[in-house]
């Protein structure tokens, strides 16, 4: 059994709490992404799973076995370091078969398994080359192969793509996902890039300031973010979040967005939930992809500051830099000059408590 269970996991460094009370279960064979900005506690969490750091409180279980106190060499986890930690004084082969040799496998088995792994990762022609001086893309494959050859039940990856160039990153995302399917291990993947998490993970655990914010499938965290942090962190660009107050209008409950005017009326379910939440101050959220330009009627009117035309999509930046509203359109549309009137798709509207940031969920 290689499910991972974290129970009330806490990590303190002196007076600084890097991880606060984390509870998380990672299923056997699941690909879980730990996602968050730098310093959110994701790497600390993973280092504790690997046994590089001891938790201050709480338990880590692999299946039913309590791992706290088990040294990292005996946990049977594969680990890919951010900088790959390749043994550059050895050949590619010696890197790949390192674990097999150190654990005293017979020479025939060492050779066969290393060569099979090399074949799988297209490293065969490089086997006898010194690992020093190979390109990052190859080093990364060696790092993965070196761990995978030990057939660990649990595989941990620490931002393995942050050092490779953008074009190769896209290729590697697909490859990593395919490898994980093939090996079928439990995989924990640390990243700060929501795109990597969305494209590869079965579930995403979003973290911030040492607190687990939300766990869910990529679409769950995208469609139903638990709070404003998740709403802003997931998506490219993240959700637009505007401060406002609930306001009754003759066409139903809406949100008064101050200088931006009154929003279009809220859908009934959301309006009911907003009423129930009992606080008039709300954060009004909508996805940049789910807005359209309107000719007349209720709309947010904002000056167009900048249009990023990035090929398949065009990202519009509207309004002041500090609280810009973003809108994404497909392709390369012709845009009117000056002030644009946009309206969010009602189905995409989300409300959050202005004080706690927690989502106000409608029906």
């Amino acid at each position, binding site marked *: 059994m290689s499910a991972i269970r974290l129970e009330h996991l806490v990590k303190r460094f002196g007076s600084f709490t890097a991880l606060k009370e984390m509870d998380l279960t990672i299923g056997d064979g699941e690909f879980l992404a730990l996602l968050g900005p730098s310093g959110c506690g994701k790497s600390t969490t993973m280092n504790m799973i690997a046994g590089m750091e001891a938790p201050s409180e709480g338990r880590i279980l692999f299946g039913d076995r309590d791992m706290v106190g088990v*040294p*990292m060499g005996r946990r049977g*986890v594969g*680990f890919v370091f951010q900088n790959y930690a390749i*043994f550059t004084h050895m050949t590619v082969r010696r890197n790949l078969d390192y674990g097999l040799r*150190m654990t005293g496998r017979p020479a025939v088995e060492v050779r066969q398994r290393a060569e099979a792994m090399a074949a799988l990762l297209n490293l065969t022609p490089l086997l006898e080359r010194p690992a020093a001086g190979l390109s990052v893309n190859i080093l990364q494959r060696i790092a993965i192969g070196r761990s995978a050859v030990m057939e660990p039940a649990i595989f941990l990856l620490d931002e393995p793509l942050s050092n490779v160039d953008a074009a190769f990153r896209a290729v590697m995302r697909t490859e990593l996902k395919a490898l994980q399917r093939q090996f079928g291990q439990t995989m924990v993947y640390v990243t700060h890039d929501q795109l990597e998490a969305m494209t590869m993970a079965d579930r995403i655990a979003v973290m911030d300031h040492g607190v687990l914010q939300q766990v869910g499938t990529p679409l769950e965290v995208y469609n139903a973010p638990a709070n404003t942090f998740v709403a802003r962190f997931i998506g490219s660009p993240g959700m637009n979040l505007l401060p406002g107050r609930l306001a009754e209008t003759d066409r139903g409950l809406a949100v008064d967005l101050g200088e931006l005017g009154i929003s279009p009326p809220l859908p009934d379910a959301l309006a009911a939930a907003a009423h129930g939440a009992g606080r008039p101050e709300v954060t009004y959220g909508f996805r940049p992809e789910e807005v359209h330009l309107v000719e007349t009627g209720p709309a947010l009117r904002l000056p167009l500051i900048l249009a990023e035309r990035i090929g398949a999509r065009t990202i519009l930046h509207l309004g002041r830099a500090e609280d810009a509203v973003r809108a994404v359109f497909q392709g390369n549309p012709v845009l009117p000059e000056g002030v644009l009137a946009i309206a969010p798709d009602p189905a995409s509207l989300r409300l959050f408590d202005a004080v706690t940031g927690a989502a106000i969920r409608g029906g």
Partner: protein
Amino acid sequence: MSVTDTPPAPPPTAASVPADAVRLGHWLTLPAQILILFIAVFPILMQLYISLTDWSPLSGRPWPRAWELWNGFANYADLMSDRRLWSAVGRTALVMIVCVPVQFFLGLGLAMLFVDDFRGKRLFYSILIMPMMVVPAVAGYMFFMLFQSGGPINDIFGTLIGRPVVIAWLSDPTLALVAVMIADIWQWTPLMFLILLAGLVGVPDDQMKAATLLGANAWQRFRTIALPRMKTIIIIALAIRVIENFKIFDTLYIMTSGGPGVATETISVYIYKVTTQDLIWGYVAAIALVILIVLSVVAVLAMRRMAR
């Protein structure tokens, strides 16, 4: 490690540096080159010259006129059959063969203890490197006192076995050599420790962790990761100590003056005696030159090894 195609500027090749710039470079470094010539080349040539003569300061001639006492390669021929010299060479080699490995393994062991943090690390560190800072003459006098027949070392042994011990450390030919070696090990293990600690600290932590996660135990990690990565620094440390040991003199001379008899007479002690007592400088110059050549060969071999 950031990976973009921002290669550091390629080293300037002949093609990218204009010829006039190269010429200017030569002019600018000329004073330094002349200085090096005087510091290194001049004394060696002078020594070579004198070694081919029978010159001595008592010969009544200034050294440039040493040619009047020209004797060709006679000094070198004498040197080959000088028993006392070759036994001094053998003794020096013996000291080296014993001391350098002991210093290396002691230093390495200590360095490994000091890689991780522990309470009082800084204090122990200061104490450990202190012997290196002691002036050799002082160290020599210290060990001279310690190894007296009625000295503290015999007292300690006496206390341990419960009856007085009178070992004549410095007047027994074998024990005198042992005492000299102990002093050398005491004084120079710290240097080995310092250099090897620097090497150990330089081994990337991630690689050690990666090896651990792949199932390597502490000894395997040391053998397969730390040691190969420290190769260069180990060679440097060993080369320094081998060369220094070849020249072993000061502490030893104060402890035993090379005695009893010639029991602790090393190359340097022998040269010193020939220079100051026998005053046959032409012969000394020949010995010194041969030693220089031998040491240079050792150094070059070591450096070649490092370059690989």
